[in-house]
């Protein structure tokens, strides 16, 4: 507990952002307000438990989850991901060659803002960039293969706190702000924003489904969903949520998806990576 507070404190102080002249975007202040909102609303939920989504909100569901985790349904995906990660391309290189530390134990650093290209790089995007740079076919962002790769990488980072950085660069702050805007903007014929469900109604029931809190919501990705009977990447989840509110999904890894992932991941800083995980 103390160690976690220390880690969080070092992180928060270490990323103190300078204020812009007008309409200051202050991720640090946003981060504090976001966290406080959830811890105040759910005082009995231990901070790290928020990453468990609906299970942190509903005792009955939690018991179901315990039995599911006896034979974790995402294990096959992790194994498949590990194999695929080590499998050489036609040119002899592997996916590990594209990443720091051969891709082991680095998931908590994604997404990051690439100052060279001026855009947010997510893990899914980085994987496809690696494939394309090595003459290999990129993966569909909602595919089982992509989920297997991110499942493996998340698995190697399990327990490590999310460590998203927003560099001292107006473009990075703009991307962060764009992600924040996407998160709170109503869309689709049903007029829901992400916040409608995950900020205003965590623990609420939509028919029989229990809504996850937005705090730590990406820490658990990718997920094995029982309703899907297979794995879901972050892209898949965003796209499904869009269609559920009757909005046409954006193409995979659209800049808005990457920006909202950047925003939400930053909000989950300090909380442990728990992915890959099971969901109802």
């Amino acid at each position, binding site marked *: 507990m103390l160690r976690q507070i220390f880690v969080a404190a070092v992180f928060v102080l270490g990323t103190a952002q300078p204020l812009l002249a007008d309409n200051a975007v202050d991720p640090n202040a946003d981060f504090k307000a976001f966290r406080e909102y959830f811890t105040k609303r759910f005082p009995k939920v231990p901070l790290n438990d928020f990453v468990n989504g609906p299970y942190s909100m509903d005792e009955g569901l939690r018991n179901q989850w315990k039995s599911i985790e006896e034979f974790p349904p995402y294990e096959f995906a992790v194994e498949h991901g590990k194999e695929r990660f080590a499998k050489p391309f036609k040119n002899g290189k592997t996916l590990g060659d594209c990443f720091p530390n051969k891709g082991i134990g680095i998931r908590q650093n994604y997404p990051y803002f690439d100052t060279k290209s001026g855009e947010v790089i997510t893990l899914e995007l980085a994987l496809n960039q690696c494939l394309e740079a090595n003459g290999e076919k990129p993966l569909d962002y909602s595919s089982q293969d992509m989920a297997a790769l991110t499942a493996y990488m998340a698995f190697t980072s399990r327990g490590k706190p999310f460590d998203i950085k927003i560099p001292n660069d107006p473009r990075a702050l703009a991307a962060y702000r764009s992600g924040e805007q996407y998160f709170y903007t109503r869309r689709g014929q*049903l*007029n*829901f924003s992400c916040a409608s469900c995950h900020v*205003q109604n965590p623990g609420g029931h939509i*028919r029989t489904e229990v809504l996850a809190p937005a705090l730590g919501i990406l820490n658990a990705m990718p997920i094995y969903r029982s309703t899907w009977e297979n794995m879901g990447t972050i892209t898949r989840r965003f796209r499904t949520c869009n269609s559920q509110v009757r909005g046409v999904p954006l193409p995979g890894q659209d800049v808005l998806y990457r920006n909202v992932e950047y925003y939400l991941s930053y909000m989950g800083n300090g909380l442990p990576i728990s992915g890959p995980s099971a969901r109802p």
Partner: protein
Amino acid sequence: MTGGGRIARGAMALAMLLAGAALTPPGAQADGQKLAFDRAKGNCLTCHEIKGGPAPGNLGPPLADMKARFPDRKELIAIISDETKRNPLTVMPPFKRNLILNDKEIEVIVDFLQTL
């Protein structure tokens, strides 16, 4: 058959039609419930507990005691049409503004709601 006789019968038929229209047609409540429960229409069970509806959500209050809580049907019509006017942060979809339900459908649903 004289012209006058035909006219008289026509007038009677018209009168009966008008009288029939003034009464609530049989099955109106069933229509309102059908619309309310239909996922492509009211989709009300997603967020509201409603008598006779399976597996309801709970993002909104249970729809019970409606005649007492909403004696003026205009209020219900307003809420269903566009609740954001009253509460900008509501999660209730604006059924009329976003063209999910038309005026007639909203009226029929309100008829049903007032029986709850």
